[in-house]
């Protein structure tokens, strides 16, 4: 006589798995932290996503004001918006920085996420062509403000990751 575990883990039984959706869409903010990643995030925004907002830290590439308790971000449609408002509306935040790029804005964004208990993921892209020193410099700015850091050799990982997370 088979046990319940044996019967229920068969391929035949798997056909009876409930087909109803088991999750709702999570609101995700994807933020380019520097100029090189900005063009990538702009390209990414043209794909179809469920609930994603694409932002840049500043179109003019001037550093975000780290002395302030809040900062400004810019949507892909060139609308200025407060970091705090972006984080308030998000279930998760993905920060993208190029290896060697300036990622200082991660601090303001990370602080806002900490306050709201919003999950932060940081991606360093283009690591294959960057020196260890460049990767380290960017990593040092991201690490304190990220619950997960991924150092990817190429930027196509970001698309795969967002798809995997149902963004």
């Amino acid at each position, binding site marked *: 006589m088979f046990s319940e575990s044996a019967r229920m883990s068969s391929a035949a039984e798997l056909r009876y798995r409930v087909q109803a959706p088991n999750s709702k869409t999570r609101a995700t903010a994807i933020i380019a932290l520097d100029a090189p990643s900005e063009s990538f995030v702009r390209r990414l925004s043209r794909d179809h996503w469920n609930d994603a907002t694409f932002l840049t830290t500043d179109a003019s590439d001037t550093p975000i004001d780290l002395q302030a308790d809040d900062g400004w971000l810019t949507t892909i449609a060139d609308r200025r918006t407060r970091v705090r408002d972006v984080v308030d509306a998000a279930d998760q935040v993905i920060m993208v920085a190029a290896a060697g790029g300036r990622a200082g804005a991660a601090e303001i964004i990370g602080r806002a996420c900490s306050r709201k208990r919003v999950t932060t993921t940081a991606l360093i892209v283009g690591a294959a062509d960057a020196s*260890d020193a460049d990767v380290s410099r960017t990593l040092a700015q991201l690490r304190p403000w990220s*619950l997960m850091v*991924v150092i990817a050799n190429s930027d196509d990982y970001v698309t795969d990751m967002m798809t*995997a997370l149902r963004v």
Partner: protein
Amino acid sequence: MLKKEQNDLLTQTGPGTAAGRLFRSYWMPALLAEELPGNDCPPVRVKLLSERLIAFRDTTGRYGLMDEFCAHRGVSLWFARNEECGLRCPYHGWKYDVTGQCLEVPSEPEASGFAKKITLKSYPLVERGGVLWTYMGDPATAPPLPEWEFITVPPAQTYTSKRFQESNWLQAMEGGIDSSHVSFLHRGDLNSDPLFKGAKGNQYNLNDARPVFEVVESPGGLYIGARRNAEDGKYYWRITQWVMPSFTMIAPRGNHSVHGHFWIPIDDETCWAWSFDYHPVRELTAAERSAMRDGKGIHVRVDTAYRPLANKDNDYLMDRAAQKAGRSFSGIEGIGMQDASLQESMGPIVDRTKENLVSTDNGIIMARHRLLKAVKALVDKGVTPPGVDVEHQKVRSAAIVLPPDQPFKEGAREAMIARPSVAPASV
């Protein structure tokens, strides 16, 4: 989540499939050497990558791995007589050598040369480190023999076991790189298991139940770092190695041995979970070997067919009383079966279109990403996948305390390379 076609692509490894071609690029563990213990010993049925094979050791000690069925009428050669440098089918006496070449067809005149025209498909089978390895790809592109450290250290320093797992290889392998489940599923085992307890690193684990993860691409696969707070603002790092397609190595604890796994597809619904423990600079003690045989650490107690004694037929010996009393978080005994029971409960091939991954699953997401890219590059352009190069195999996991601003890839650079007679980085 994965799209259905991606899930199918990565989970199907039979002949002619894309992921099957990927696996056929590597030397894979096929059998423990103990399964063919002597010359002319009984042959052993083997199924790998959905191919039914027979393994045997001939009169001179040569190993053979070939099509299980006699070319004449399709009899399983498990019934064959292993005699005088070949397997002889008991039905009509056809005889094959270790290369699958038919040597004799008794009903045909020897001078007819008929036997020379009969050849069973065969694969090389080579012993290294107590494991019999096979390569099932194109012989013209066979890579060098494997150089994993656990098979290159002296025999007294290493121990390998295997167990049958009733799930697809990918969901088993993904458990090996899913560092975030340890704080739940395996809690309680760190301080009691004889192969883990006593290490200072255990205290870092227990003091900080919310590790932060970093995933970094490596030449052969991934480094997956989990960091926890240590003294003086420093971080305690546990670095897992994943080398494509299915080798994982877990960070060591104290002076305990280093350990890891291979997950090798038997077919699309079952796999072999290989588990190894070794120490780079010392022999394993009798107590350690005894504990490993007894299913401690990452090993599992199995029957003579290498099926775990706790298995789905007996509900994995689930102990609800121990679960309720807090003696066991999952109610299943042993780290290996805690993992296997849950992975098998997903069904033979988990439907990844229904999953909801979170940020801490980036190790799994990146592994799938690299596997899909490697399969595509191999199929479209013939690019040799990562992990075939023996330099990619000379890796170690590591446990190390580093300053807060130091990338673990830099701080543990030397520690993550296997070097003969150099102690592992462990806390």
